[in-house]
């Protein structure tokens, strides 16, 4: 049973053995940045935690899962064209939808879509290009669509259990990304692929820091649609 083997492989010394640690490092980096920003600046903002804490918490969790998949894919570097399309589409869609949804919930559909599309296209193309132009194209399209959909969904749910929707959206996205990691593991194992690249922990810390700072700035200080001012 390859799924059981995948779960077992999370404890090995190879690529999959790094995945749990990646989540840990990313969360530590994100929450550390948030804690510093909070004590330096954010705690002076009225109702900061009730207004924005929930969305920043889920942003940090989302980035840890996205970066986990990015690191997993980068370790093997090259996949078949078909797998590349799936990788580009999944990463592009999820890394567009989640930030789009979270920023859209606080800044409105336009800025949620802008942030979501930017992140989605960036990660979609970056990860999809491991497998040629089709993967990159798929990543670009999925990032574009995911970002728009994230912002739009948040706006339409603003008066209807938005926070519960955010939890559900996050959980579904987590399952999808876990499925992608399993697919990458299965592809690598079935084709006898070995690690071709190793990212250091600094890679995860850098990206967690960058994504958290950008998202925090947008959510707290960024431009807003008229409805959110």
């Amino acid at each position, binding site marked *: 049973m390859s799924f059981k083997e995948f779960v077992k492989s999370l404890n090995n010394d190879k690529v999959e053995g790094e995945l749990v640690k990646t989540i840990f490092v990313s969360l530590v980096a994100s*929450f550390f940045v948030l804690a510093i920003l909070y004590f330096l600046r954010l705690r002076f903002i009225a109702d900061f935690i009730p207004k924005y*804490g929930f969305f920043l918490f889920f942003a940090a969790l989302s980035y840890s899962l996205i970066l986990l998949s990015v690191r997993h894919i980068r370790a093997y570097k090259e996949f078949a064209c078909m797998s590349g399309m799936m990788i580009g589409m999944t990463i592009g869609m999820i890394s567009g939808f989640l930030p789009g949804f979270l920023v859209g919930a606080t800044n409105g559909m336009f800025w949620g879509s802008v942030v979501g599309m930017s992140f989605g296209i960036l990660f979609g193309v970056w990860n999809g290009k491991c497998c040629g132009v089709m993967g990159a194209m798929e990543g670009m399209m999925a990032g574009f669509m995911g970002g728009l959909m994230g912002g739009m969904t948040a706006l339409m749910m603003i008066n209807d259990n938005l926070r519960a929707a955010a939890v559900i959206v996050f959980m579904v996205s987590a399952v999808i990304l876990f499925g992608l990691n399993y697919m990458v593991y299965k592809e690598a194992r079935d084709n006898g692929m070995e690690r071709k690249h190793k990212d250091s922990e600094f890679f995860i810390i850098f990206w967690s820091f960058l994504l958290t700072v950008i998202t925090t700035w947008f959510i707290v200080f960024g431009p807003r649609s008229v409805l959110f001012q």
Partner: protein
Amino acid sequence: MKYKNLFFILLTLAIIVIAGVFLIRGEGTSSGGTATGNAQVVKLSVEGGRYVLSPSEFRKDVPVRIEADISKMPGCSKSIVISAFGVRKIVSESDNVIEFTPTKTGTFNIACSMNMYRGVFTVV
């Protein structure tokens, strides 16, 4: 190696719980209350995809009684939200009244639960 990852899993869960306890708190609820005494009576309808309040200017700390004209309110416009004062209600033929007390001044939004129908009113 097995125990090393177990350690990371436990630490990760601990971080999530600690950060969650700190960051996830309910959004502040407004102090909007039920109207009593001499309420300001306001008519609400939908025209051209927008909520129309008549009059659209309320006095602060005086209860407001909004009477919705259901015959002019299609679809989701019956699900009304005034987030600034914690108002959320689905009006119907048998219950078309929304009551609250505006406790702060400014211009505020009234919207349907999907944000498709919108309008504004002012509290002075």
